[in-house]
């Protein structure tokens, strides 16, 4: 979860100062901060509960094959259509995931889920508002939205790549599992996609691998860039 949010938040932050209109620029930036903040919260849980390295080390000093994010979030931003459709697909899954975790037997995640519910609700509202408008606006905007959806669909299904601990998580009532999440996600987004006058691609083959450390060629450059300054000094140096 933390890796997803970090990489996705990083991609969103690239829009800061580059958005299609000032008002939207500000919105995107806020969501980038929220996502990176959620990543930080999750890394902090790891540090506190499982004595891992600190969040900065986990985020800025790991290798590509140690990153567990789905490939959807690492793809470069392209144009606004691509970023927006990814935002729609990812944020609905993120929202539902945290909703499911609000009753998790693992208290820190249940607490975090309650704390950030409002932020996630806004992210989804933002995505839905834009998708339904641009899907219905002009021929160009419609075609752009549909092509982005086609291009991203299989990557989006990759969000739900089951981990090796799936059965254990379900048994211990920590998380109901990726299958349930995917089902809820499909039910939630299908009517919105229809309202946006768009069609879910008929054939699908999920892009898995991200959760096991296999990535596209777009992740490594992101990681190198993100760590350029912090890795110029010894780990632990204050910046």
């Amino acid at each position: 979860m933390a890796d997803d949010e970090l990489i996705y938040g990083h991609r969103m932050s690239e829009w800061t100062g580059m958005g299609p209109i000032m008002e939207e620029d500000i919105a995107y930036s806020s969501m980038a901060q929220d996502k990176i903040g959620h990543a930080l919260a999750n890394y902090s849980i790891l540090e506190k509960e499982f004595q891992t390295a600190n969040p900065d080390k986990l985020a800025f000093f790991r290798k590509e094959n140690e990153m567990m994010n789905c490939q959807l979030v690492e793809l470069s931003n392209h144009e606004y259509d691509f970023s927006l459709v990814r935002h729609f697909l990812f944020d609905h899954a993120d929202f539902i995931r945290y909703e499911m975790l609000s009753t998790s037997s693992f208290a820190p995640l249940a607490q975090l889920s309650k704390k950030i519910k409002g932020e996630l609700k806004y992210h989804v509202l933002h995505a839905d508002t834009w998708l339904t408008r641009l899907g219905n606006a002009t021929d160009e905007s419609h075609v752009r939205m549909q092509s982005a959806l086609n291009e991203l669909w299989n990557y989006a299904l990759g969000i739900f790549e089951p981990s090796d601990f799936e059965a254990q998580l379900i048994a211990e009532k920590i998380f109901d599992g990726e299958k349930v999440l995917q089902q809820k996600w499909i039910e939630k987004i299908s009517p919105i996609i229809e309202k946006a006058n768009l069609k879910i691609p008929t054939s699908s083959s999920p892009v898995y691998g991200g959760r096991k450390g296999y990535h596209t060629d777009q992740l490594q450059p992101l990681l190198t860039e993100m760590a350029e300054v912090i890795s110029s000094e010894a780990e632990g140096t204050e910046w």
Partner: protein
Amino acid sequence: MYGGGYIQEEKQEATSQIDDAQKLAEFEARIDRGEKIEPHDWMPADYRKQLIRMIEQHAHSEVIGALPEGTWITRAPGFRRKLALIAKVQDEIGHAHLLYSAAETLGKSREQMINDLLTGKSKYSNVFNYPAKTWADVTVIGFLIDAGAIVNQVANSKGSYGPYCRALERICYEESFHLKQGHDAFITLATGTKAQHDMLQDALNRWWKPIMHFHGPPDKISEHTAKLMRWKVKMATNDDMRNQFLDMYVPKILEIGITIPDPNLKKNEATGQWEFSDPDWDEFKRVINGDGPCNAERLAVRQYVEEHGKWVRTAMMNPNQKVVIPFA
């Protein structure tokens, strides 16, 4: 009573000169009483023109100012700096938004202003035509350029035009975070490893000249300036603002072991004025007129961004909507 704002074309009322003289007297008396001017008030054409020019330039400076710091947004070291830098650059865009809105109340549309920025017709602060070469540049900008801007903005927030003052109050509140995070990052480098310290010293050496340019060339108190100050469009002279900036920030630079690359910089205790080497006002003029290290890139980026956002904006346009000037 009138309603629905007013249409953009209706910028100035045609009145006789005698009317104008009386209205001018009332206008100036209002300013003398310390009252604010509001959007739909009568105002001298020159007051309107100068305010638009000033607020617009300020807005452009925020938009373009997001670029040098944006250079490091994907490379900020660690969660804390990464989040703070995104929030800061976001605020700059937010400030631009508030300022364009204030300028719009004077009758120039946001589209016109941005077009004038893209064609180079209107200017923005000269400092943003210099490159941010290292992370340390971000801390110099965040600390010292923002500090310079605050001196300017606090002064202007006591000006006479209501919408501009209201925008500046909010901006100054947010700038206090910018300054503090910049100062914090600046101190961290100054007091960090040798490489960090050297990187900061190098950045300050490169930025000192643009910083000295920041408040504009030395004042020649012209009749024009006098009039703008009487109208509370301009609230302090360039020299006064620069002097105030040096008073406040030179000690903060020196106290943490960073030096200033001007051997002649010192305060004349008798006059209270800072003395310094000529910061090369010819270069200032050259850069203003387009020949700076990053002028072309800054405008090219804005053009790219506007062009690639165009499909989003035009898709959502509704020709049946009535366009009016914002109210306040």
